[in-house]
């Protein structure tokens, strides 16, 4: 997905925007919980990318990873300037954040991970997403889900397996690396 270089002319900006802006906006909305601030964050990110485009080194990572690294800083700047916190994730994430050091950066990291998982869930197939939502998030028994979907219970289990594999792949495509996930 990431292109190898970052062109500083208008067509280069347009190409990078076309490839990544939707995803960046989704993350910014998830983090700041405000569409106006998210728009501001994405615009600022592209301006900074243009400003420092000559420092982009394709040997070190993709344009996408570079843009997201800038976006994280911009979101932190905006959150600090406006004394807002990134939007809390689930109860579990909130608990983790309050158990440990709940700095803006920590919460932003949680927001980024939460957004990546939500984005990964959007990217996998409908059948796979459905079984994860029903069995994990809604805590419904496999037998009940199987009856509702008209498939054997064993098929629900195998779909859960393939769903997790697809999620892992989607997360890796977004730059997630479990060696740094803690």
């Amino acid at each position, binding site marked *: 997905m990431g292109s190898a270089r970052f062109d500083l002319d208008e067509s280069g900006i347009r190409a990078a925007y076309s490839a990544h802006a939707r995803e960046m906006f989704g993350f910014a909305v*998830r983090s700041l919980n405000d569409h106006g601030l998210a728009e501001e964050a994405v615009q600022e990110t592209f301006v900074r990318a243009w400003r420092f485009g000559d420092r982009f080194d394709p040997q070190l990572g993709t344009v996408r990873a570079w843009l997201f690294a800038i976006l994280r800083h911009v979101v932190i700047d905006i959150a600090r300037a406006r004394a807002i916190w990134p939007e809390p994730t689930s109860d579990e994430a909130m608990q983790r954040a309050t158990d440990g050091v709940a700095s803006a950066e920590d919460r932003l990291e949680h927001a980024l991970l939460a957004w990546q998982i939500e984005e990964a869930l959007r990217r996998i197939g409908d059948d796979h997403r459905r079984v994860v939502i029903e069995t994990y998030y809604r805590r419904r028994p496999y037998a009940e889900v199987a009856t509702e979907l008209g498939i054997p219970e064993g098929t629900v*289990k195998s779909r859960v397996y393939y769903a997790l*594999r697809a999620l892992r792949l989607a997360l890796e495509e977004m730059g997630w690396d479990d060696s740094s996930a803690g």
Partner: protein
Amino acid sequence: MTPRPGDHVRLLVGALVLGHLDDDEATAVRAHLDGCPTCREEAAQLGPVAGLLGLADPDRVGAPAEPPREMLDGVLARIDRERAVRSRTRRRSILVRSGAVAAAIAMVIAVALIALWPREPSGPSGELVAMTATRPGVLGEAVIHEDPRSTWVELTTSGLSPGRTYAVWLEESSGDRSPMGTFTGVEGDLYISLYSTLPRDRAASIGVSAPDGSVVMEGAIPDPVPA
């Protein structure tokens, strides 16, 4: 495709790492993992993914937020503005250097140039504020943007000491300062963008301070033009 031995167990690894198997099934699958490196590796791959699921909010998985159509126009317009600011700063910088006059005289010329430089109209493109430097060789200008939710400033400087940390602030007429952030000086021109929650109409001046607190440059912000 012919199922391989252990395939039926491998397909249970997802439910295992989610903690969804009953005790008997979980024990059987774990016993299989003990002797099957392939399935063990599978569990090692899927376990971290299962551990992350709790961070997500399933209600947000529906339609993703779509960026507004005009967002790209905003990006391109801001880049055009920054390009214009850079170009002006470069021209001014060249003028000062090519004079080959004493540093004090150069500073006077620079300050005069900044003071005489035509004002940009306020509005979406922002308002240009000339910065008066207290040190020779230092130049700066700021573009102040008014936003319903904040004030944001584009600051362009040159001549500051590389590696030193500088603080940017807005000052109210009462003398209260609102910090906007810090930056590190570099060789050549430096452009930064900062935000403040202080409304534009309360900001009387913008300034940059050195680590010892001394003011390096400062500029008066004109009263806002009524809409």
